[in-house]
């Protein structure tokens, strides 16, 4: 279709303007965070601000990775003799262990979430049993309760079980957050798979286990990848439960340690910004790499309304 020139130019112009605004809004804040993390404390405290690092350096990141080798005392903080000649927060050495905790919890949550959700979603979507709808609604209803409302009783329960400061308690808690939503996504995906395939498999003598394994799983790869990503990201980003259920470095996750830096107002801005960049990299990479799956997986249930 060959339309006249004027509307096409207008369209191109509008698209360019709105694309520019979009990039500015979505990427601008993160770009500024990254830019700040590559500057020294002196550079980021200049007025007016340096939009780009005058002399890009990764000294802030080196300081984080070397933090465990340095003993931070009141004396050397006062002399400002940290690697970057900035102030390092006293908890700087906790950042890498916290990152490890975040990775461990995230991996467990992603794996267990998939295992639990796939089986439950298969049962609800495929098997005709009494209470299948009720099971789904009960699961979804638990997510309507705000986290902050759950955190108080959960804290009491887990404290009485003596499981404060255990990564396992975090994993189980996060499963309660991710599983209902994952089931919801997987059900709409499973229901889109032709019923005839299931019937054929059953006639061939497959039980539910083999029907799930050989028919449903291979056909729902996007939803499975989306579920994995969603669960890992939820776990990686979660803050309220981790704040209340962990009280020392053994179990604290990255968001907790970073929030500690933010509260400690002697911390150098450049250090906090670098820590923020480190926390952003894994989830953003994951999201961008699996973009195609996330979009089709996360939105599978939306169109039906």
């Amino acid at each position: 279709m060959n339309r006249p020139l004027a509307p096409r130019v207008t369209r191109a112009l509008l698209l360019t303007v709105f694309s520019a605004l979009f990039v500015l809004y979505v990427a601008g804040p993160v770009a500024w965070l990254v830019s700040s993390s590559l500057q020294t404390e002196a550079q980021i405290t200049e007025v007016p601000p340096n939009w780009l690092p005058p002399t890009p350096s990764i000294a802030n990141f080196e300081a984080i990775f070397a933090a465990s080798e340095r003993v931070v005392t009141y004396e050397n903080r006062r002399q400002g003799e940290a690697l970057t000649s900035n102030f390092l927060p006293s908890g700087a050495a906790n950042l890498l262990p916290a990152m490890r905790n975040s990775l461990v919890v995230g991996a467990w949550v992603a794996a267990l979430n998939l295992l639990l959700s796939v089986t439950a979603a298969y049962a609800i979507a495929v098997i005709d049993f009494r209470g299948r709808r009720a099971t789904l609604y009960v699961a979804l209803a638990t997510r309507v309760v705000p986290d902050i409302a759950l955190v108080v009783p959960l804290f009491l329960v887990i404290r009485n079980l003596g499981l404060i400061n255990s990564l396992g308690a975090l994993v189980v808690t996060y499963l309660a957050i991710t599983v209902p939503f994952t089931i919801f996504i997987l059900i709409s995906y499973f229901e889109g798979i032709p019923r005839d395939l299931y019937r054929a498999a059953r006639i061939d003598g497959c039980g539910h286990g083999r029907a799930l394994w050989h028919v449903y799983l291979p056909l729902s790869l996007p939803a499975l990848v989306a579920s994995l990503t969603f669960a890992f990201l939820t776990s990686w980003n979660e803050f309220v439960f981790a704040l209340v259920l962990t009280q020392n470095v053994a179990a604290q996750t990255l968001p907790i340690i970073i929030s500690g830096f933010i509260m400690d107002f002697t911390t150098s801005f450049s250090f906090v910004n670098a820590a923020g960049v480190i926390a952003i990299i894994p989830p953003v990479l994951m999201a961008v790499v699996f973009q195609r799956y996330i979009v089709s997986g996360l939105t599978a249930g939306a169109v039906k309304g």
Partner: protein
Amino acid sequence: MRLGYDERSAALLVAPVLGVLLVVAAFPIVYSFWVSLHDIVLTRPLRRPFVGFDNYLRIFDDARFWTAVSRTTVYTLVCVVATTLLAVLVALLLNEVFPGQRLLSALLLVPWATPSVVNGLMWKWIYDPTYGLLNGLLVQVGLLERYRVWLSDPDITLLLIANAAIWKQMPLAALLMIVTMKAIPEDLYRAARVDGANVWQRFVHVTLPALRPGLMLVLVYETMISIRHFDLFLIMTQGGPGDASLTLSWLIYVETFRSLRFGTGAAMSYILAITTFALSWAVIRFLGKRI
């Protein structure tokens, strides 16, 4: 016998999930109600008398509670309306086919994947009164004469926090809108063009009605999410300045973990939970028919 096998399998497959939800969701919800009927103060652990609904009555007499209700209402409304509008705009843009569209779609996932703690620290740094990007930018462009405080200004602090929240939750809403838009048959637009409808008329009469299911989902989801926001408040303002950003979630946190009054904290949690539940239900029931 077939029926028996089906039911047994289903029970086996669903049981683990129900187990987890029972321990980590259902039981705490019930337990929380029991706590809310007792006067539990953690500084006096052995004294925990049953007080019935006294905690609830005490909350309704508490001026802080009503402040928090109004702050939460304003904050939630701003978040939901702005997120939805922005999401529709972004979806209209990304639904077009043009060079670079794929790159922009990938960028859209960046805020979604950003941890809320980092989101809070990032915007706090942008709003920083002396070194922040916002002052620097506005003054250099000439929109602002000299540097000013942002988060410490009680008139706008709630809006500034909302802005950070909107930045993070807009992408998912936009994705949902894009998917809904993609499902609109191209024929409808062709027919509208034949009838001489311009761009705006096509948007109002074809796109908007077809967006209904997506809009519903976004409205309910954003309401549920925004009303419970907590992370940003802890990172950015701690409820301040004064009580300018004292929302219900923050009040519950302070009451429970700073004042250690678990009884009233649990009662407040219950009020918030029931409100969220009722709101979601109401949005589904009433708006569902009207949009």
